[in-house]
């Protein structure tokens, strides 16, 4: 079942079409990477899913229920982590999570246990200082805790790692990996290595639509080319027969030919290079292909 279903979504700000006919479906218990450049409409899409922004056209369903702007009924299925989560600086983490628990109607007897569990999950147990003293990474971790307080079926994270240092990024990604299985995660970002690391599926948002969807667990991203190391005299021999793109002093990339053809040519000329590898495409390569 799809926890999130978006059909033909449109949104413009004044004359600027930000989202134009976006279709997206996210299966339960997966981590979905929502990739796009800054300003591509990722946050706008997420805010429409949360009912914080009104779409011009199209439909959004969360757990089978229609999302209506201004009403928050479907938000009981959702946890949201904004890119820069803001809190009441005069509270401490436990006080803030208690407020969130009360807002979400978690029964009083279960609140303490849930809060303790989440504080342990994000490594903030025993931190009693007020939130105004927290580092960015600590705030982001508290952001995840507050987003998970209602045990959501869908966790929406808007660029959760983009403002963090490498350590903070790793902590957040580890937490997201830990909760996979408990909840579905949609994770918007322009940091493609983060997506490769934890996502099951990714969609590239470009010019208001999902231009390409990739199942990162099942399908290979394809071959980028064959990288071969050649001596200058070997290069002289092969340059007329192979499309060689120079990478550095002795390394060349062959594109558009099957590896059998390359092997055959090398063998014909009795050239046996020290280094020959099939180079796989990265998500960045796919992203650049789609957006260029």
């Amino acid at each position, binding site marked *: 079942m799809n926890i999130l279903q978006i059909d033909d979504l449109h949104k413009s700000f004044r004359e600027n079409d930000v989202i134009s006919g976006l279709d997206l479906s996210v299966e339960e218990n997966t981590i979905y990477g929502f990739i796009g450049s800054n300003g591509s409409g990722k946050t706008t899409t997420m805010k429409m899913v*949360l009912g914080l922004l009104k779409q011009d056209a199209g439909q959004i369903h969360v757990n089978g229920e229609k999302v209506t702007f201004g009403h928050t009924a479907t938000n009981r299925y959702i946890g*949201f982590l904004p890119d820069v989560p803001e809190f*009441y600086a005069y509270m401490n983490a436990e006080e803030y999570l208690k407020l969130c628990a009360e807002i*979400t109607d978690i029964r009083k007897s279960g609140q303490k246990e849930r809060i303790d569990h989440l504080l342990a999950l994000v490594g903030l147990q025993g931190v009693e200082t007020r939130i105004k003293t927290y580092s960015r990474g600590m705030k982001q971790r508290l952001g995840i805790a507050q987003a998970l307080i209602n045990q959501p079926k869908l966790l929406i994270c808007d660029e959760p790692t983009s403002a963090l240092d490498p350590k903070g990024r790793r902590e957040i990604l580890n937490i997201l990996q830990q909760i996979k299985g408990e909840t579905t995660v949609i994770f918007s970002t322009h940091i493609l290595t983060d997506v490769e690391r934890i996502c099951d599926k990714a969609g590239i948002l470009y010019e208001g639509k999902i231009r390409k969807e990739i199942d990162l667990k099942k399908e290979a991203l394809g071959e980028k080319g064959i990288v071969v190391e050649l001596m200058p005299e070997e290069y002289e021999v092969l340059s007329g027969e192979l499309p060689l793109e120079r990478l550095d002093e002795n390394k060349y990339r062959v594109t558009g030919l099957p590896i059998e053809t390359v092997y055959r040519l090398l063998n014909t000329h009795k050239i046996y290079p020290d280094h020959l590898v099939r180079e796989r495409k990265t998500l960045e390569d796919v992203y650049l292909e789609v957006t260029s």
Partner: protein
Amino acid sequence: MNQAAALFKKEMVEHIRNFKLFALIIVFMILGVVSPLTALLMPDILEAVMEDSGITIDLPPVSAFDSYAQFFSNANQMGLVILVIVFGNIMTHEFSGKTLVNLVTKGLKKYNIILVKSAFAVMVWTAAYITGALITYLYTIYYWEDEVQHLIAAFALTWLFGIFLISVIMAASAILKSSFAGVLITMLAVVIIMVIAGIHPDVAEYLPQYLISSNMELLTGELEAREVVPSVIVTIAATLIMIGASIFIFNNVEM
């Protein structure tokens, strides 16, 4: 109901920790003390000043009316300005700080935000105003024995006007999402009402402004309580409309 209670508790903690709760109460305590004392000491002060200048004047004896006049003058000017300053950003600091996003995405109903914040502001205003009024009343009955009329009604007029101002703040904040604009619009609304009252004296008694210009006339018996009923009804209706409009507007605000 749980949401409203949680939000109310959050407002209480916030206003205690940022001292705003105490600021308004302390201001009204000071007004409560200063008003009767000013009335009491004013003849001595004036006499001393006049003696230095070689002028002799005959001042009428100070009465309870002077004490209340001082209180209403202070409360209707400085007191109401402080009220607007303290609560001018009660909504808008949440917009600018984006602190409501986490709570709204948890299912917090937007009407609860308006209702709870309005109720909290009314509660603090009521506590501060009653504190100031009670202090003035106790000092006044201690120093003077004059009979005044419609005392509770006279006090209630300023209190009701304060509630009206809170509703203007909520509506202005929901529309403009800026604390500066919230304060500005509230001030502007008061000025517009005063101008209308000035240009059309015949409609003045139907406007909220009439409440804060009738306190002393009620005390002295120049006005009967029933004569302020039209402006009381208009003010209550305007307050309810402002709160209703705030909820409607806020429900349609994109966050």
